[in-house]
């Protein structure tokens, strides 16, 4: 592993940030949500960036995770940590279920199929009232604070858990990217028949990426459930609020790079919170409108995302120093 100075400083800064913020305050909540979405975008990045399988239905996994741990807690009193693992397994299974029939589909068709799948999950959760509480949503029951119970008085532990989650997902992303699987995915992305002919089991590799991504996303759903304490199907399975948003974050930041989703999240989420705050209901939808415009702008003029701006800035700076 090459030692990189900048990321280490950044991680250190991020790690210290929660300590500086008011543990009951507003900004620590924003930070936690930002870290969570960064992790979700990074998990999406595994299929969207490395495998080039554009999924518009990742909310399916997120929602499965949120419901899995909460239902297990409600009905059997199982700790959310274990529930998270169960959710992860279910998420991985769901990824398999959707990936196997859609494996052969290319680009747009695949995106459509994932979109439909996300909606299927949302409708199922809305309708299966006996299990999920239906459209009314679920509340995570109050439990005396304790680490094992994933229950905390303050927000600070949630922020740290989200930070660790982001680091873990990013580590998984990087490990895949540098490993044999990463090479195979790059081959599959660039020329499928050639990849097959040189011995890559393209189906299996794509499925592996899908399962890893689905499982991680589902586990992040548990984090959300414990943080938000209440959620409903339309929120955790939402196309706009989850599926499109995490893909948007990864793309604006720089799809396919480790830093992209993090950059994207730290740009989008705080900006959104700020705009919603300043403008409130008078300008509902303005923040989304702005993001739509930014997305279009990025696609047209900087398709590799903000990360390229940083890379070229760095290049220009180092050229200046060399002079």
């Amino acid at each position, binding site marked *: 592993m090459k030692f990189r100075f900048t990321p280490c400083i950044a991680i250190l800064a991020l790690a210290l940030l929660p300590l500086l913020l008011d543990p009951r305050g507003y900004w620590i909540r924003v930070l936690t949500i930002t870290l969570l979405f960064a992790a979700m975008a990074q998990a999406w990045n595994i299929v969207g960036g490395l495998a080039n399988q554009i999924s518009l239905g990742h909310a399916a996994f997120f929602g499965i995770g949120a419901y899995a741990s909460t239902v297990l807690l409600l009905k059997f009193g199982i700790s959310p940590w274990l529930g998270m693992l169960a959710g992860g397994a279910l998420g991985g299974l769901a990824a398999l279920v959707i990936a196997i029939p859609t494996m052969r589909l290319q680009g747009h068709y695949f995106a459509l199929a994932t979109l439909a799948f996300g909606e299927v999950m949302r409708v199922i959760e809305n309708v299966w009232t006996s299990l999920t509480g239906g459209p009314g949503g679920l509340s995570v029951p109050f439990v005396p604070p304790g680490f094992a119970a994933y229950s905390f008085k303050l927000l600070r532990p949630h922020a740290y858990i989200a930070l660790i989650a982001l680091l873990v997902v990013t580590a998984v992303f990087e490990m895949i990217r540098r490993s*044999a699987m990463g090479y*195979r995915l*790059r*081959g599959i992305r660039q*020329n499928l028949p050639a990849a*097959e*002919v040189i*011995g890559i089991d393209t189906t299996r590799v794509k499925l592996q990426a899908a399962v890893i991504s689905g499982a991680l996303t589902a586990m992040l759903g548990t984090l959300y459930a414990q943080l938000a304490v209440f959620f409903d199907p339309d929120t955790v399975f939402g196309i706009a609020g989850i599926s499109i948003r995490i893909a948007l974050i990864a793309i604006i930041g720089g799809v396919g790079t480790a830093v992209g989703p993090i950059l994207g999240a730290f740009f989008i989420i705080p900006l959104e919170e700020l705009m919603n705050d300043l403008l409130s209901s008078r300008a509902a939808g303005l923040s989304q409108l702005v993001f739509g415009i930014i997305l279009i702008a990025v696609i047209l003029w900087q398709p590799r995302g903000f990360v390229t701006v940083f890379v070229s800035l760095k290049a220009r700076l180092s050229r200046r120093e060399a002079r």
Partner: protein
Amino acid sequence: MTILEVRSLSRRFGGLQVLSEVTFSVRPREIVGVIGPNGAGKTTLFSTLVGLIRPDTGSVALDGRDLAGLKPHKVAAIGMTKTFQNVALFAESSVLDNVLTAGLLRHDVDRAREQALNCLDRVGLREVAGKLAGDLSFPERARVELARALCTAPKVLLLDEVMAALNHAEMTEIMQLIRSLRDDGVTLLVVEHHMRAIMNICDRILVLNFGRLLAEGTPDRVARDPQVIEAYLGRSAEALRR
């Protein structure tokens, strides 16, 4: 003692019979040329052998193993792979990464990298290992593709027009390389339009026309075959006879 056994291979695309009862066998370490006019089915034959296309009828056996219904990656694992006529490199990856990816079939990343560098050495492109594959010239890309196929350690290697767009010196080099590969134990099937090259390096030649195997035999015999001459009316026929 055959390493590749092809029986009655047939395939239809819509209204066109692209392959028609093609039957032949190849002995280990043979260099077999596959020639025929454009559209004769040569590339389709290669694609069918490696499993990219399913034949309607017929069978392919590699080293005694029946390849029926196997996907290309399994065929590669058993020991047969091909290069693509229009070169199918990973244009956004480095030359080394292109070849390395093929090495992953049998090795881990570090070993695969070593093997990849060896294969690049073999084709004489080690210096450009770090360059982006899409930045190379067409002949260079063809050689990278050859190196990549080599890196899967194949028993049977199918080369689809590796000598297209080469000048005389480059062609001689490739011909040398093909011979040395055979010396190392690889069996090769070579599709080519350069008659002189084919005549020079091949032990045997298969002639395809309209999906059928028109003739088969040593270069001399094939050059004298009246059916082949008729299919190839013109200067190439003259080249065949020389």
